[in-house]
């Protein structure tokens, strides 16, 4: 056991060394040490003005956006196959459940003849369209609603290109129901106040530099009664399962990233950013602080808390 661990560690080290040699601008020197030692994340330096965390590193706030951009530009093309490998396909079930539970779309049988048709959905950080296509499919086939619109916003043009490419294989390409915009979730100037029925962000919010600002912005664009829904990695409750999960995420995921996508560092960032994301209760409190009402206890755990669905409703 000890020997094999050392061997894996050495392989990982070798792989990362190679990468560092090739791309010196993305050296993750401290994160590599973390991966070898498998220690819990170090305490973030408290209240250093103008810095934020990027995985386990501390970087200048201005730099985080840029570096997250670099990560997602490099994973855009292999995004789906990598998700399948890392989550063993379970991410599809989570996304299906997320959409089914939100039940988007207005059934014309119960809709009043006056009033707006369909929902206006804003999918933040949804570049590849995973959630958007599911929303539109659910609205069309389950609720017989041919009016629900989805605006896909992403900060990363490479992810949006990937989504536009995929949209061509759906019936929604070049229809007014699907729109792609490049936008920062903290400054949604192109979206008017009180105009959105449902704001979703799936596996995106942990990459935001200022989560509170993004939540405030969500509160602004939502109609009264509109729903904020967030699908995000979270904290595992069971300590035994958590040990296995930490082993998997720090040991296997960067390795899979290296083998499948040829990019270890981006996936190292991914697992570190997951470890850094606030727990269910902390994030629930952040949603409440932004002014939302939360349903029930405020979140729903998926697969023992590996991921969680958080919801908030803007008071009417």
């Amino acid at each position, binding site marked *: 056991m000890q020997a094999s661990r050392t061997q894996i560690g050495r392989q990982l080290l070798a792989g990362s060394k190679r990468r560092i040699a090739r791309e010196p601008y993305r050296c993750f020197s401290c994160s590599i040490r973390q991966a070898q030692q498998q220690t819990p994340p170090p305490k973030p330096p408290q209240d250093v003005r103008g810095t934020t965390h990027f995985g386990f590193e501390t970087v200048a706030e201005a730099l985080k956006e840029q570096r997250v951009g670099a990560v997602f530009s490099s994973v855009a093309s292999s995004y789906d196959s990598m998700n399948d490998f890392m989550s063993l396909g379970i991410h599809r079930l989570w996304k299906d459940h997320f959409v089914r*539970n*939100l*039940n*988007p779309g*207005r*059934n014309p*049988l*119960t809709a*009043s003849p006056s009033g707006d048709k369909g*929902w206006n959905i804003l999918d933040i950080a949804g570049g590849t369209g995973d959630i958007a296509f599911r929303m539109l499919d659910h609205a069309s086939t389950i609720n017989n609603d041919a009016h629900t619109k989805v605006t896909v916003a992403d900060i990363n043009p490479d992810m949006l290109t990937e989504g536009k490419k995929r949209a061509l294989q759906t019936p929604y390409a070049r229809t007014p129901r699907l729109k792609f915009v490049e936008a920062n979730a903290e400054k949604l100037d192109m979206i008017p106040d009180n105009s959105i*029925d*449902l704001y979703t962000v799936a596996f995106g919010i942990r990459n935001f530099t200022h989560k509170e600002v993004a939540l405030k912005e969500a509160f602004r664009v939502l*109609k*009264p*009664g*509109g*729903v904020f*829904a967030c699908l995000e990695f979270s904290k595992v409750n069971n300590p035994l399962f958590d040990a296995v999960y930490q082993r998997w995420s720090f040991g296997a995921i960067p390795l899979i990233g290296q083998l499948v996508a040829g990019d270890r560092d981006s996936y190292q960032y991914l697992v570190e950013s997951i470890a850094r994301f606030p727990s269910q209760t902390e994030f629930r409190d952040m949603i409440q602080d932004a002014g939302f*009402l939360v*349903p*029930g*206890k405020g979140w*729903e755990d998926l697969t023992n808390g590996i991921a969680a669905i958080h*919801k908030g*409703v803007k*008071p*009417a």
Partner: protein
Amino acid sequence: MAPVRLAKSLLGTCRAASCRPAVAWRQRGLYHSYDYAQAPPFPPAEAAILSSAYAHVPTHGFTIDALKLGARDAGYLDASTNLLPRGVFDLVNYHLVTQRLALKDNVQFFDNGEAGKKIGVGSKVRSLTLARLRANEPIINRWQEALAIMAQPTYVPASLSELAKLADEIWFLAGDQSVDSSWYTKRATLSTIYSATEVYMTQDKSADFVETEQFLDNRLADLTKVGGFIGALGEWINYTGHSTMNVLRSKGVRI
């Protein structure tokens, strides 16, 4: 002596300190208080959506459509039904909770001696149960849907606990003060009788549900019969056992 007293008083303070939060929490949920108003069972936004959705139940049933229409009536959006994490079951639960809490205002007993005789606990239980069943009347043709939702495995624990709370409420309002094991048997038998009668009521086509009333009376009569039988059986076993012992003793057996 002094150390013992010190230890005792320490223990006392510890106990008091550890008990206080628990008691404060319990007072909210488990005790009937005559001095303090009970907190409303639902937060305001949920209550607004649920109460207007409840008005749509006779036409749309316990469905997501009723919830959406209710949300619209309350000034919310279709999407706002996400505020109810259990969806349709929250609507069923709303009916159960509000009708249970309405029971104490709907049924009043005047046994201050003006009618001459006191109303027994048994007949109070009967009229309370009947009043609770009558509260199902407006939505009785949709109640089978609700029973089906309540029978879904995820919701069975919540439904059973609500049934237990109803049985407890009825016995409390009837003035039952038992502090022995009959506390449990009374609530268990009433729960069984209530749920059976409720199922019967969904099929009842008679005018003003007289057959349901008859059904309830028969079940309560069965209960007294069975209760009497068990009491008699216990008496018989007790008597026979003692006699057997005494006969054996008289024959010189050392027991």
